């Protein structure tokens, strides 16, 4: 379980992508990303919640109090239309960036 430092922008993108299907609460988001990346990317609360609040202020996600399967109150975050557009943009620029870096790394 190595912890990899990722940039804030990439973190935002990951969170947005995670939310692209269903609304989730903060813990679930962090859990999902850990599971998907095989524990490579572990997002601590100190990064997660500031990021969530920041994105909420920017209008990319919307928060709503809801109830979990265990009947507990939790704050669920949902992707907005602006957020979806933002996600598309970030994904495309990230893909371009990684392809470019890969090209450089491929040369001997």
């Amino acid at each position, binding site marked *: 379980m190595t912890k990899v430092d990722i940039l804030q922008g990439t973190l935002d993108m990951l969170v947005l992508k995670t939310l692209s299907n269903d609304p989730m*609460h*903060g*813990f679930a988001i962090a*859990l999902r990303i850990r599971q998907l990346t095989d524990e490579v990317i572990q997002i*601590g*609360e*100190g990064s997660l*919640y*500031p990021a969530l*609040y*920041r994105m909420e*202020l*920017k*209008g990319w996600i919307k928060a709503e*109090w809801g109830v979990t399967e265990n009947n*507990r*109150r*939790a*704050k669920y975050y949902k992707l907005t239309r602006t957020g979806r557009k933002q996600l598309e943009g970030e994904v495309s620029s990230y893909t371009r960036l990684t392809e470019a870096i890969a090209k450089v790394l491929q040369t001997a």
Partner: protein
Amino acid sequence: MNRLLQYLFQFVWRLWRRLLSLLRRRGHEREMEEEMRFHLEMQIEQNLAAGIPAEEARFAARRQFGNQTWLKEVSREMWSLRFIETLIQDLRFGARMLLKQPGFTLVAVLTLALGIGANTAIFSVINGVFLRPLPYHEPDRLMMIWEKLPRAEQVELSPTDYEEYEKRNQVFAQMGAAEGANFNLTGGSEPIHVDGQAATASLFPLLGVQPLLGRTFTKEDDDANAPVVILSHRLWQSHFAGNRAILNQTIRLNDKSYAVIGVMPPEFQYPPPVRQEPILSDLWVPRSLATETRKYGHILKTIGRLKSGVTYEQARAALALALQQRLQENPKEHNGIATNPIPLPAQVGRQIKLAVQVLAAAVLFVLLIACANVVNLLLSSATARQKEFALRAALGAGRFRIVRQLLTESVLLSLLGGGFGLLLAYGMLKAFHVFGAGQVARLEEITLDTRVLMFATALSLLTGFAFGLAPAWQAARINLNQTLKEGGRHASGSGSQRLRNLLIVAEVALSLILLVGAGLLIKSFWRLQQVDPGFNPDNLLTLEIQLPYPKYAEARRRETFQQATLERLAALPGVQSAAFISHPPFGRGPGLNDFKIEGKPVPLGIANARIAGQRIISSDYFRTMGIPLLEGRAFSSGDGAEAPRVSIISQTFATKYFVGENPLGHRIQMGGEWFTIVGVVGEVRHAGLDAELSPHVYFPFAQGGQFRTRVVIRTHDDPLSYVAAIRQQIQAVDRDLPIYAVFTMNQLIAQTVAQRRFNLLLLGAFAVVALLLSAIGIYGVMSYATARRTNEIGIRMALGASRGAVLRLIIGQGLRVVALGLLIGLLGALALTRWMKTLLFEVRATDPLTYTALALLLAGAALLACFIPVRRATKVGPMTALRVE
């Protein structure tokens, strides 16, 4: 551009959300806590599910969670606007500090209220008179069309002039004009006199103002068989009770029925309300129907709307060209005047502009002096709070933070001062309305409107920053170690003293300038009162009557009226004599008329323009007024309607046009007829005590064709006690004749100097306030300086110095500062009073007597202000002084 808008929108949106969340801060915090708690619980559950024992599970979860407080803070920053939070903090603390020092706060607030209030009041004058748009459509496309004389810049056009300019017009989309027309409105309980205007049909469409009710004139209204009238809003309210049914009813004006076709909205006026004595018109009739339409005389107030794209310069040039062309075609019409069109926005009287500018500068000075005093107060207060600042700095407050907090206090002070200042301004405006009635154009529009309030707020904020900066900066500049050690008593030393001295120099200089300005105005006013008006104004009553046209159309009728009325009036006990005059001195002047002198062709140049004021009088006029007859004879009953045309000229006329010859027997032509000169009389200052003498011509009443006239009556004692008897006599001759505008001659004279008196009182008041504030400031600084030197005084006196010597030493030092201020003030006054030269009368802007007297006055006040605190300090025995630690 789109991207920019997007960013802007996002920024505003984010700001807005932060502001909102600021309000719901506590709710947010609770939610955040709950969310964290939930996350923690889930983490613990997961740990338990993974098989970690309970205690460890909880501990691991906590550790993973990190520093909760720090997290909260970071998250909080996401939600809140740091800036506003600290601002609110500063405001609360500042308010508390101000309340803790009530004396200081009170003095500072009052001082600031004076400064800010006075500035607000003057700004509202500027706003009402200059900044408010005139009540017409697109007023900057309008120009008033005047003609120019050497001493009169704005002369109305004669009907011939108007026609000629209209004929050759290239630059105006439309031209319109109106002349004064006056009516007796009968049909009510009492006949009243109404001032009105006879307007061309083009005038109302040109001005572009929609009537409140009904319509305005069209070409068809020029029909003498169906006369129409438009009422002003004021007349409609005052005389017709605002009754909408007045539309299409008729009213009787000068014994003729006029149909009311419209009512104008409240703000509408024509002629434009920009001259010094605004003529408020209450009704408008078509010009062709005006009963007093004259063919001659410069009576038309003309206005033109420029075609789109035409500039003011182009219009000026075009009119000058038109005049040239006209004179080329008719050289005989040349009478030496030039055209002078003025754009409407620039039309406000120059005299008023200068007076207001001077007053604006004066209140600015007062504000500066007030600020200087408050700075002094703040410096002292900051010294007392040194310990507090040292503590703050030790706790980690940066210099900027302390400065910001002090600035917040200053701005709070000045906002409070501004609030009270508004009250003061309100009071001042009320006083303006009372004292300035009739003197200032657009007086009713001078109110505390939104723009004025914004000005007051902005000024308060600015002032707060201005006077707060220096003391705040100085207070923050503290030596931590030293201050905390010495218990905070040690004051900041020479730096602050130098600042205080500088402030005193500034205050004294500014006060002297104001005092000199006021002094010069006082002297001018006094000189003005000494001027000989050319007649005896005491115990002289004047009133006006209007002879309605149809009844008095025949000259014979008017002659009979004159004789009957004057006989009756002269017969009243207590009345010495009575006479008629169309335009008495110090009232509204007559229209100017072009004239020709037989045998004297007109030389070129406007200095030689043949234009003069004509006055129509009854035979006893000169005797009643006390005007000396210099040559020839006065009018007599022999100069009747059928008799040969005669005239009497004034002395100025004689000396101007008949140099070295006897004017008697020469003939002049005015208004189409030739008159023989039969007398020369002494000059009268018709236009005002400070006006220049200009030529006048008098004509006999019976020959003059005059329908409106003033009656002057000389009585043995208080003229006003005779009014009822006089009215009775006049109405005995004609029942339907109202008398109005009843004044004594001294009242009329007072009216003409009222504007001057008004300026004088204001400037004088400001100067006195400046003097007092400066004295208080000097007193404060001297008290402070002396208190600091109590030790030193004690030592000196213990070592044998007499009280007098110590007094002289300390006061001498103080006076040196004052002397510097006086010197700078004198230089400043010499430089600046040049600017108000046109407001002065027979006083040089460098009048040495005034300067010396006021400098001595200020020096005396300063001396007193220095003396009192120092004397008090030296009264304390040397032992007590030494004991002060």
